[in-house]
């Protein structure tokens, strides 16, 4: 007995149509809604637990030297600003060798035979962050000893491997005065200091490692935040000697020499600055927590803290006032990362950011007018890995955290926080959800 082909064809068409209707109906699963908590087989509780530093933290290290002020491109110029001194030292790039000029017949042509006859230094400054209530005199002087931009500091002109040469005089050594200008926040955002032709000619020798200009504040007690420095050079083109043109040389090397550089407080944490500091600390989260009587009536106490129960882990830092000269002038992003190989400190590789992609913003007032503010750093995945004993990829879980500026270095200003042993010591905040075991009915 065989199914005839004609019947099979009809059956196939009908089955296909009906199965399609069934599948269509199945695709429209709809959830009914009711109210009864009795249907929940477990009754989880979500709680917040705060642990003091002694319960979870240890081995705090504050390590500086990451990056250089030369990477900033901008910084302060001040003399005795609350005891702080800072100078900008600049080495300009080569002068332009060619300029397009209009010749005597009125045709624009490139001219590579320029005669430099003088110039002017233009110092641009930040009118919002500079602390200059009255006009501030700024002087410029030509450096007279060899110096190395990436490594120069207040005391040292060159600090490379095998060559550590101090300045003859701290703060940039003796200089040949060039001139002065005045910074008046009400009048503009730049200072102009004339430069004579002889100095321009000297700076045109790019093989001279002593060349440079040191910019410093003449008047004490104020701080000018320099954004950039340029040299505008006046030149006579050979194609039209009756014409005066102006070309620009930019700051090839610019760094800031400052003094003093305050050491981190022994009871504090420090992040940021230039060169930047990082704070390293080990974390050993508690494995158990005591609960109150109502909880213990339902669950076994002390309650075990497991990775699955941790919904959120945060490190709470309390800000501390920073010396005026080093107070950040803008919001700084703080980054927190796991230290993958602590034995390699200070050059230990770090893991990816534990928080948001842009770090946690720390407003500048936290470190000036609002000390005691709390900065919350997310460390959920780090703590969960520690409780599991391994990372998601199966590697042993690191137990050291690095707290650092998201962009490093970002400014001379740094962030300071209360450290272990102080009332505002770091706190570990855990959000736990605790429940019984899910069983069959």
């Amino acid at each position, binding site marked *: 007995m065989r199914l005839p082909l004609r019947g099979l064809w009809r059956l196939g068409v009908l089955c296909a149509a009906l199965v399609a209707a069934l599948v269509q109906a199945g695709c429209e699963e709809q959830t009914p809604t009711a109210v009864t908590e009795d249907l929940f087989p477990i009754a989880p509780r979500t709680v917040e637990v705060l642990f003091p530093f002694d319960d979870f933290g240890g081995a705090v290290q504050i390590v500086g030297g990451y990056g250089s002020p030369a990477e900033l491109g901008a910084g302060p110029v001040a003399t005795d600003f609350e005891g702080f001194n800072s100078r900008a030292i600049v080495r300009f790039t080569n002068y332009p060798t060619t300029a397009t000029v209009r010749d005597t017949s009125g045709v624009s042509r490139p001219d590579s035979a320029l005669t430099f006859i003088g110039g002017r230094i233009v110092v641009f400054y930040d009118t919002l962050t500079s602390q200059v209530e009255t006009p501030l005199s700024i002087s410029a002087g030509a450096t007279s000893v060899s110096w190395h931009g990436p490594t120069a500091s207040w005391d040292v002109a060159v600090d490379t491997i095998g060559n550590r040469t101090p300045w003859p005089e701290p703060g940039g050594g003796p200089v040949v005065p060039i001139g002065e200008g005045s910074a008046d926040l009400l009048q503009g955002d730049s200072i102009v200091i004339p430069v004579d032709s002889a100095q321009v000619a000297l700076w045109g020798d790019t093989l001279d490692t002593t060349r440079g200009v040191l910019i410093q504040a003449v008047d004490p007690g104020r701080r000018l935040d320099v954004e950039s420095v340029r040299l505008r050079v006046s030149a006579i083109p050979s194609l039209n000697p009756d014409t005066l043109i102006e070309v620009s040389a930019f700051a090839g090397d610019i760094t800031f020499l400052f003094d003093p550089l305050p050491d981190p407080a022994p009871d504090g944490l420090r992040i940021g600055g230039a060169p930047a500091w990082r704070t390293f600390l080990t974390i050993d989260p508690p494995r158990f927590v005591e609960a109150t009587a109502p909880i213990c009536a339902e669950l076994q106490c002390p309650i075990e803290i497991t990775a699955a129960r941790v919904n959120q882990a945060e490190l709470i830092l309390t800000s501390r006032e920073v010396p005026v000269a080093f107070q950040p002038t803008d919001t700084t992003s703080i980054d927190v990362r796991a230290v993958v190989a602590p034995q390699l400190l200070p050059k230990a590789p770090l893991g990816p950011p534990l928080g948001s992609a842009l770090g946690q913003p720390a407003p500048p007032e936290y470190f000036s007018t609002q000390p005691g503010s709390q900065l919350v750093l997310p460390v959920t995945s780090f703590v969960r890995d520690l409780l599991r004993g391994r990372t998601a990829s199966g590697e042993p879980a690191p137990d050291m955290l690095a707290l650092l500026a998201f962009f490093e270095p970002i400014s001379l200003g740094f962030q300071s926080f209360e450290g272990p042993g102080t009332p505002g010591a770091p706190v570990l905040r855990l959000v736990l959800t605790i429940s019984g*075991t899910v069983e069959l009915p």
Partner: protein
Amino acid sequence: MTRLLRFFLVPVALLGPVAASGQSLLSAGGLGLRVEPVDATARALGGVVTGSMTPRILPGYPTASLDLLAPSLTFTGQPSWGDFTLEDQEGTYQGTRFPLVGFSIPVNLRSVITLTLASRFDQRWQVSGVGTAELGEVTVTTDDVFESEGGLSELRAGYARWLSANVAVGATVGLYRGKVNRTFIRQFDTASVANPITAFVNGGKWTFFGPTASVDAQWDPIRLLRVGARISWSGTLEAKPTIDTEGSRREIEMPLEISVGATAILTPGLDVSLGLETANWSELGDPAFDETASGRVTSIGAGLEWTAGSFWAGEFPLRLGYRRSELPFALDADGALETIWSAGFGVIMAQSQGFPLATLDLAGELGSRDSGPLDESFRRVSLTFRISGL
């Protein structure tokens, strides 16, 4: 051991609403919602399968396949739509299930072998709730979802044989197999907090395993009457947690199920069927299951089949039925009652020498379930295809 600085302990208050999905909210009780693994013909006839005169492939009833004289394959699909009220709440649901696949091979004109895969209990349901958690000075909204996904099926192999011209017996052996995932997820609305709060997940997975066997018989004392009976035995159903499940292993003592039924030809073209099934769903060996078990439950059904004439390639039977069932598990100890009115028809799409080679049966049901504060009404369509002569 750590020192507790502060332990804000705020139980999450369930504010509602709560949601559930599946074929019924009764899926939340015990082993779930019982699924009767029958075809559209039985659904239209009030669920009566024992003593039926219509040849079919049914789990645990190999004698019903004795008149299938060619290898046959059957398949049933079952979309359903429902509404419910639970206390002062109302809701709807819908979904499609496939409760039965069967295969039969006639050994000779007097005996048949069957193989069936059928659903027995549906454990698909979901409940959710909205609450709050006080985390320090911040109130965070929580969304809780508990989901149960899975069910219990039976795989049976059967053999039946005519002992005489009017007496046949059959037997099946089989296994209960299935699995269920039960997962609780609490998610946090992080709009009010600076850093994300990861969801809390807790759950487990169990697999079911257990033996079952049945014997059935049918007898035609006169040409116009067929009576039948079946006894189905089940051993201990083991619910075994997977290795990463904290939940415990469970054992459920499945009850003996007995069913009897009869079909009588009242007039040429008009049959009436009656059936009764009973089982004692108590003392299951697990107090948690006993808590929602209904004790002895009985189902009765009645159906009327009238062959109105011919359509397509053969007869065109019209069917009416009624069924009243006590369900094995309920939301509480009050038990659960299901009543169904049904109607349907069958179409023979191809036949040879009077033997149907391709059939389509359809049943529509209007039903209700009542369990304490829960009232459900549902509409269900069952479609069964059978192809013979493969």
